[in-house]
């Protein structure tokens, strides 16, 4: 024992000279890190470095192509928040988008998952069919609904005409008052089944004993939902509240594919504005500032949830 202790290397040179230490280092440190390195390097190259550059770029007046770059501090942010009225409008649209997605798909998914969780036979078939829209590409979904919402031959127009109801031959996607909510409706058609599957999986992991106990206590269906189901699935509901709130500030592809922010900016959101600033108007610095602002919103939402959790809101 004493001999071994004496031999134990201490300085880096002694360590390198010691063969067992070298072999251990190789096996427990170097090789594992070599396993991790390729993916980590790709990730740093694609995400971490550009993310840091983005913060710097947001403080310049760079256009994106010419080598002319000036550091202008927080001027882009000042312009964004106090001078650019279109940004306020976009932000407002993002908030409306968020209010839509924090209510409609959640209510739909909760209701449907509750219905589905009580079914024994045939549940799998419903589950699969209701999930199908979620695996479709955004280009496919938007193509389907652009056709269906057509004012002349669309599903609403045709059905309303057949029933003799007037007022539905409307270009829902081409009007300033209906464009944004129509796009949200289309995105939700694709999205809500995903939420439903998550809630259903969580409901199925609630011990049946709790439902039996509620029955014995004479709980009706609403009370059962309110006092057994809802507490059981609360963690996933709150987590998805956070994710959906974040995603609402990133919304892009459905809007871009259907209206590109139009008509007249009616469906413009921060991301579509950012895209135009960066790749069509060549205001890279200004676009980078918008990207940072989106990230700050996302970070703020996460912070709120972490704080609520700390306060004993067991999420």
């Amino acid at each position, binding site marked *: 024992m004493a001999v071994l202790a004496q031999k134990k290397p201490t300085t880096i040179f002694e360590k390198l000279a010691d063969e067992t230490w070298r072999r251990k280092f190789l096996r427990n440190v170097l090789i*594992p890190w070599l*396993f991790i390195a390729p993916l980590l390097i790709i*990730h740093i190259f694609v995400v971490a470095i*550009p993310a840091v550059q983005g913060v710097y770029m947001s403080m310049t007046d760079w256009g994106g192509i010419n080598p002319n770059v000036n550091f202008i501090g927080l001027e882009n942010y000042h312009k964004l928040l106090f001078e650019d009225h279109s940004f306020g409008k976009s932000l407002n649209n993002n908030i409306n988008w968020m209010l839509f997605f924090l209510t409609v798909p959640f209510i739909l998914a909760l209701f449907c998952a509750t219905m589905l969780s009580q079914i024994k036979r045939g549940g799998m078939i419903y589950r699969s069919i209701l999930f*199908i829209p979620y695996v479709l590409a*955004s280009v496919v979904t938007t193509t389907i609904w652009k056709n269906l919402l057509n004012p002349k031959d669309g599903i609403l127009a045709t059905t309303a005409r057949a029933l003799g109801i007037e007022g539905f031959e409307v270009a829902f996607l081409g009007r300033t008052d209906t464009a944004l909510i129509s796009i949200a409706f289309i995105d939700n058609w694709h999205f809500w*089944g995903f939420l439903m599957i998550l809630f259903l999986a969580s409901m199925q992991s609630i011990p049946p004993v709790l439902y039996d106990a509620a029955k014995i206590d004479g709980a009706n269906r609403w009370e059962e939902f309110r006092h057994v189901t809802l507490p059981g699935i609360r963690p996933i509901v709150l987590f998805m509240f956070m994710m959906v709130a974040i995603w609402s500030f990133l919304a892009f592809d459905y809007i871009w594919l259907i209206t590109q922010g139009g008509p007249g900016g009616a469906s413009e959101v921060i991301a579509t504005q950012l895209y135009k600033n960066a790749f069509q108007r060549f205001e890279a610095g200004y*676009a980078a500032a918008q990207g940072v602002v989106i990230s700050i919103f996302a970070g703020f939402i996460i912070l709120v949830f972490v704080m609520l959790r700390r306060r004993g809101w067991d999420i």
Partner: protein
Amino acid sequence: MSAIGKVSLRDNILQRGQRKERGKLLVFNHAVLLVLTAFAVIPLLVLAFNSLKTELEIGQNPLGPPTRIVIENFPTAWEEGDFAITMRNSVIYVVATIAAELVLGGLAAYALARKKPPGSDLLMLYFLIASTIPVWMYIVPLFVQMRMMKMLGTFHGLILIYIAGNAPLTIFLLRSYMIDLPRELEDAARVDGANEFQVLTRIVLPLTKPGFLTVGLVVGLGVWNEYTLALTFVHDPNRFPVTTSFAKFVDRFDTNWALTSAGAIIILFPVMVLFLALQRQFIEGLAEGGIKT
């Protein structure tokens, strides 16, 4: 005796009551679910119907099934939409991303789950934070960086972006699968004289196959359907994936529903075949993936 009899009698009544109640309620449940199922399916049915009609018929009969089935829309859409090229491109993006993600992610996850080198916790924190950074934060500088490195509009440029974007999800999922694997199996193999590489390929990989299948499906579906990054980083029609190419096709044939419907069916067909074959893995994988990112 009597006490037991009472309890079982009560149970019986309770059960029968429940069964009765359930039976009544199920009608309502099925009614609701059928309405929601129709909401999910009717748009897809209309799409399928319209892809099999002439444009003329769509004008007269926009929603119902075709009176005469025509399949000409499919070859026409395939030609006009350059699907021969874009399908090939999308397959390249999907296969290359999945392959790289599984190999590199598998290696990293194995190191993190089993070897835990110093700094592992920091690395997990890095990926956790990175997974919350919106793409909008870095898309502009990334574009500039890709242009500087002459990777703009190349296959490997976009593939690298896809690999990085899916890296946190891959590592979290595969690592959790590997941690759940009992260590004894690996130790037993080592006792039998297997080296580290054999332990990985003969023991760990076969037993974590479901994890790799899940990640492959989630990543593959995401890349096949991806639009925003492809729109930003690829401008050469010869390297377009189906999504950005199809978006342009829809703009060009805006009012020709027969043709755009056929094109949409071409894109969703491979996804639907895979989905119907691997429903459970798809649904559970995407649910798991949705929570982990």
